[in-house]
């Protein structure tokens, strides 16, 4: 059975509907990234799960227990859910150790002390127990927040854009480290972000939110290479969209000519749609009789991004040929793969 089930969830904030008909599942020990542009309802969903917002329809079930529905709202303090807030929400009047022990009020004194020590070691902050929050760096504060949220062994951990206040230089390292910690503790977690790179690096599975619904959920590769719609495709990275007509179950006709699909298409012949081609799914070769012309280039080290014009169509192409000059004529072809057609 899954850890968390959310079905047909609807939520309002200040009278405005934010979430409507949202479904989401989380497996035991899974880290799920909630990804979406600002204002799509990510934080609202997180707050609904934590019981900080009521739901108007649907329900949220954790470990088989109904937490929220239109009729019931289990108080936040009885849910046993840990939350890492964007600003960490560390208590400025308490020391690091007192912050970590905040949720351990009903524990035995000795056990609580041992748990705090264990947590401090886990997040590698041993020796800073008696510091106050303002004496710590941003990364250290982040670690305190993690230690505090994990100390009371929550059933589920929610992270609200936890890395947005961290320097980009240390962000990657910290993310890997925290992922390691969650893994070692066997924690199920939901992680909210608007940056796809963070979601790719941190999560096992991701759910993309759009207009208060889950637009698509699944492993990162599946979403990137087989997006269900144009919104998901756009959100996860740039691409070229070509008018395409299905010619046979394995072939479409486009302005670039016929393109073969590695798997069977879901649409019948004569269907007219849009074909998604990621920049790296196109290949270019210098060819003086080629149909394309290089109109722009951006060098990026091991590869180069080009704009190539083929007749009236402008294409973005990522290529290992880093030496092509502006105005160079090239031959353009799609690399063999399972085509994505909307």
């Amino acid at each position, binding site marked *: 059975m899954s850890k968390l089930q959310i079905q047909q969830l609807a939520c309002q904030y200040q009278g405005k509907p934010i979430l409507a008909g949202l479904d989401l599942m989380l497996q035991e020990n899974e880290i799920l990234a909630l990804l979406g542009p600002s204002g799509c309802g990510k934080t609202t969903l997180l707050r609904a799960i934590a019981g900080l917002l009521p739901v108007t329809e649907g329900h949220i079930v954790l470990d088989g227990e109904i937490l929220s529905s239109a009729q019931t*709202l289990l108080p*936040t303090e009885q849910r046993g859910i840990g939350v890492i807030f964007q600003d960490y*929400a560390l208590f*400025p*009047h308490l020391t690091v150790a007192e912050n970590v022990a*905040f949720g351990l009020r*009903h524990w035995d004194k000795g056990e609580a002390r041992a748990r705090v020590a264990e947590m401090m070691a886990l997040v590698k902050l041993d020796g800073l127990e008696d510091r106050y929050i303002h004496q710590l760096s941003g990364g250290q504060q982040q670690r305190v927040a993690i230690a505090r949220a994990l100390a*009371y062994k929550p059933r589920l951990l929610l992270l609200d854009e936890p890395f947005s206040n961290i320097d980009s230089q240390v962000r990657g390292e910290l993310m890997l480290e925290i992922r390691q910690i969650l893994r070692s503790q066997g924690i199920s977690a939901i992680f909210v972000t608007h940056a796809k790179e963070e979601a790719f690096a941190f999560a096992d599975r991701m759910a993309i939110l759009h207009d208060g619904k889950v637009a698509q959920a699944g492993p990162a590769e599946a979403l990137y290479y087989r997006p269900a719609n144009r919104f998901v495709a756009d959100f996860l990275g740039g691409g070229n969209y070509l008018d395409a007509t299905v010619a046979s179950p394995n072939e479409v006709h486009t302005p670039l000519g016929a393109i073969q699909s590695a798997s069977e298409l879901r649409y019948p012949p004569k269907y007219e749609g849009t074909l998604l081609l990621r920049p790296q799914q196109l290949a270019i070769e210098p060819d003086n009789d080629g149909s394309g012309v290089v109109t722009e280039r951006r060098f990026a080290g091991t590869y180069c991004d080009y704009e190539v014009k083929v007749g009236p169509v402008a294409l973005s192409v990522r290529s290992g040929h880093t030496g092509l000059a502006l105005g160079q004529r090239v031959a353009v072809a799609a690399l063999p793969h399972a085509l994505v057609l909307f």
Partner: protein
Amino acid sequence: MIQTLSRRWSLGGYLTVAVLLLPLAALIFQSLDPDQAVFDHLRQTVLADYVINTVLLILMVACGALALGLPAAWLVAMCRFPGQRVFQWALLLPLAMPAYIVAYVYTDLLDYAGPVQRALREFMGWSGPTDYLFPEIRSLGGAALMLALVLFPYVFMLVRTAFLEQASNLIQASRTLGCTPTQSFFRLSLPLARPAIVVGLSLVAMETLADFATVHYFAVNTLTTAVYDTWLGFGSMASAARLSTLMLLVIAVLMFAERFARARQERFQKAEGKSEDYAYELRGWRAWLATGYCSLLLGLSFVLPALILLDYAWHYFDPSALRHFGQYSWNSLLISTLVAVATVMIALGLQYLARISPRRWDRLPSQLAGFGYALPGTVLAIGVLIPLIAADFAINDLYQWLERPLPGLVLSGSLVALAFGYTVRFLAVALGAVENSFKRISPSLDMAAATMGQGPFGILRRVHFPLVRRGMLAAGLIVFIEAMKELPAALLLKPIGFETLATYVYQFVSDEMLELGALPALVIVLVGLVPVIFLNRSLEQAH
């Protein structure tokens, strides 16, 4: 916000604010009483004079405060001259000086037997009052001058801030567009500071309307003294209530003007693009003129009265006249502490409810509860007495029915009336301070505490209370001091035989013997300096 907050919290908030609103409701209700014989009598005889006096007084004080405060504000904010840094805070000092003490001191100085007129007569060789014209200090104009002398700091403070927050590049731009400093003042600085001026003048007008002691001492009849006299002289609660509602109308107009101007002020004082401070360096006679003006203002409004008080205290020290000093100080201390604790606790409860409740209407109690600050002390006192006297009658009826000995006026004739009145009057101070402290706590702290198993009480006790403790202390201190100084409400609400420091000093003033009461008067001034220091510090922090 705590979505699952029990409705009992809301109920508590609404009950509290209902009790606090009782005086206002009672005033309005009582003024509808059809028995208006005394009021009709007033209307046929003196009411018109009272209203005219009140309006004239407000206008004159407003003009006076503007004439004194505006130049000082501009000089201190926009110019550099010897002493400018000292005047920044020193010109706030008059706020600590009760107007009736200033009035007494100047009467002593300027009336016929006073040193000024005596010296004039000697110098000019005049022999009697018929030989020369000297303006009578005990008059409407005199009262207006006294009030303007202690109230101008409101204008000074707000307008100075407005000038400071005007982006200096605006002034530089006006100079490049061909304005002289004078033109740039009249075409730019002054129009931009207009909302601040209106706010300052509304505060001055409200304080003037609330003033009882100065006009009473000068025997100038205004609506405030009329309320006092109708109740204590004629014993007509209904007329006092009707006069009070008349004053409420004036207050409503003033408050509306203030709110409106504040909204505009926020737009005008965005202080975007504020660069380095831009100031005119004054030299030569201009610098001396600026220093001279500010010194004269400070001298007349604070230094001179304070020195004269010190002189009284030194020369007329008489332990037998001050034998009650200790007892009355203790009374003041007791009641002020009580009120400080009560207001801060109520403010904490109401603001906490407003913060955590998921129901939008639960913000209302904290917004309504502060209304008492706008009521003049006399009006508030009448409003407090009406329900308490009614409750006392009900209690006595109950005892009579039970055939038990009658308890007497257990509410209206005891410290309950005074404590309740002060609480209503000063709650706004505590509400504002607690709200400011709360604003500095990120809402995610509440949520974090809730996720870690804390209920509403736990969050208040373990997170908010430790974090707002300092703010609450400061709020309590200011309420304490305001309660120490409060006079008009105390005159009407104090139990018989109970004196506070302020009523004690006022007794000396109205008996024309302040010389003997100079020591307690100095204590009031010294105590009043503390909030001025607070005010100055918060102004300094803003810059």
